[in-house]
């Protein structure tokens, strides 16, 4: 079985200063993995690189067998829409359209045919069936995050990438969100990679990679 994420010697810098140094990352289908590191170690930069939003200065990166660096900008965007689900700490939903339409927009940009029943089924699984036609500004923060999880999974992506999903939550809620992420990604057959500085999550992930701050150049 091919690796979902195969990253080697990824280096990236901003303004001549190194911002990220990742020697190796390997993730297989169905795996849940934690990428832990202090602030300033380039976690978010790595997440952007893995999502194809940013091209690393050097290194090799294959996602679901595809050499991401070989894709053009528009092809990378489409690839992201089809294979990668993204979840953020606060940034959740498109405010102009309702919950169901948020999911169906993800189908559109994931180049999938509109599938309303699939979207509704997913919302139902996450306990949001009754909120399908609610506008985002009427949702609680927790509901909005669950909708974002549903939206990230609606295209059955190979990988679910979560950027600091728990850092602003108390222990109970953090635990709940992680359980939800693990359950939902497992059910949808997506590998889960959580990128965080939240040490509490260590207990929930058997597999973890520690990311260190790159040495600044002299």
């Amino acid at each position, binding site marked *: 079985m091919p690796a979902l994420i195969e990253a080697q010697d990824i280096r990236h810098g901003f303004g001549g200063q190194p911002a990220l140094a990742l020697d190796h990352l390997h993730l297989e289908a169905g795996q849940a993995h934690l990428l832990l590191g202090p602030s300033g170690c380039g976690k*978010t*930069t790595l997440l*952007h690189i893995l*999502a194809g*939003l*940013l091209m690393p200065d050097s290194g090799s990166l294959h996602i679901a067998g595809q050499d991401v660096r070989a894709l053009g*900008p*528009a092809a990378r*965007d*489409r690839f*992201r*829409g*089809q294979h990668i689900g*993204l979840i*953020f*700490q*606060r*940034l959740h*939903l*498109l*405010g*102009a*359209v309702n919950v169901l*339409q948020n999911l*169906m*927009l*993800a*189908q*559109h*940009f*994931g*180049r999938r045919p*509109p599938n309303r029943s699939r979207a509704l089924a997913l919302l139902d699984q996450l306990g949001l069936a009754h909120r399908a036609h609610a506008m985002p500004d009427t949702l609680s923060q927790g509901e909005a995050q669950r909708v974002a999880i549903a*939206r990230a999974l609606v295209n059955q992506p190979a990988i679910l990438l979560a950027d600091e999903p728990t850092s602003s939550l108390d222990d109970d809620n953090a635990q709940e969100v992680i359980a939800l992420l693990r359950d939902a990604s497992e059910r949808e057959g997506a590998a889960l990679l959580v990128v965080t500085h939240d040490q509490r999550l260590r207990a929930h992930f058997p597999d973890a990679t520690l990311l260190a701050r790159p040495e600044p150049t002299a």
Partner: protein
Amino acid sequence: MTLLALAWANLLRDKLAAALNTALMAIGIATIVLLLLFGHHLEERMRGDAAGIDLVIGAKGSPSQLVLSAIYHADIPTGNIPLAEAQRWAEHPMVRTAIPQALGDSWRGFRIVGTTTAYPALYAAGVREGRLWQAPGEATIGAAVAASGLAVDDSFSGVHGFSPEGHVHGDSRYRVVGVLAPTGTVIDRLILTSVESVWAVHGTAEPTDPEITTLLIDYATPFAATTLPRLVNSQSQLQAAAPAVQTNRMLQLLGVGIDGVRAFAWLLVVSAGLGVFIALYHALEARRYELALLRCLGATRGEVLISLVIEGVLLSLAGTLLGVFVGHLVAELAGQWLGFAATEGLTGWQWLPAESWLLLYGTAIGALAALVPAIRAYRRDVTAVLKSA
């Protein structure tokens, strides 16, 4: 959900701004449409009224006054001419037909024209009720005159001059014997009778040296256009004026005024475009995270750009369509209810080729206004936006 549906949903988020922009655009476009329709209507009428008349012969004076009085019945005549002199030109070999007009009186602002039955025939005006005039004292009235309350078998006295307050020729009355079908031409607003009737009203039933006011000439040969006016102007005390030339001059003068109003209307349209620009520029900042989120969902830079352009186009298209609708509605209402001679027969039930261009221009302005914000959104570094979230 598609880009179009998303753009529409985003517009509905700020309904007030969207409504204001649409209204501003609609006012500008409606004004332009109204000017187009009115200008076209006026031109049609002026050309229609002058159709079949190659030359007007009358007393010396201003040529445009001669044409205005004889064809459009909108100015006072330049004076009268001797019938014998007029006859000479009517029988000229280069003239196919010559229609005499004896002008000078009116009834409630409608002009009384002493003429021959060739005059209504010129405008293909059929008789709707009754018949054409025959005996002296009989009159056949145009459709608009009939609409103002005069009917067959009514009788009336003309007043001297063209204002309702003139001297009343009370001793001799006209009797209406027929009503013409509406034609959409000047004849709708005229009262037609024989030349002899007009003479009789002025107390000269058998005048010794009879006069008429003008002669409407139809050339027998195109060659006449270059020679006949010069002959008339040089060889007699009369004046010849070509309606085509005078009408064009008047339309040009009118065009200057119309162009001025039109420029102002375009200013409104452009400021509506500016409104679209400001709305989208504002949205660009207010929705920066959401635009970044679109990219995370798999939208390409191009799709983000297009989504903003669609918003601009939707806004301006809505304003343009509303403006076109309102312009036609106002034109139709003005034609039906306003009751001015100039707006009579004006209709909103027509589509001018220039309006198709207007649709294109109006929409293009929205697209153009959206372009700068859209390009900024296109160029924006998503990762920087996400990091600041």
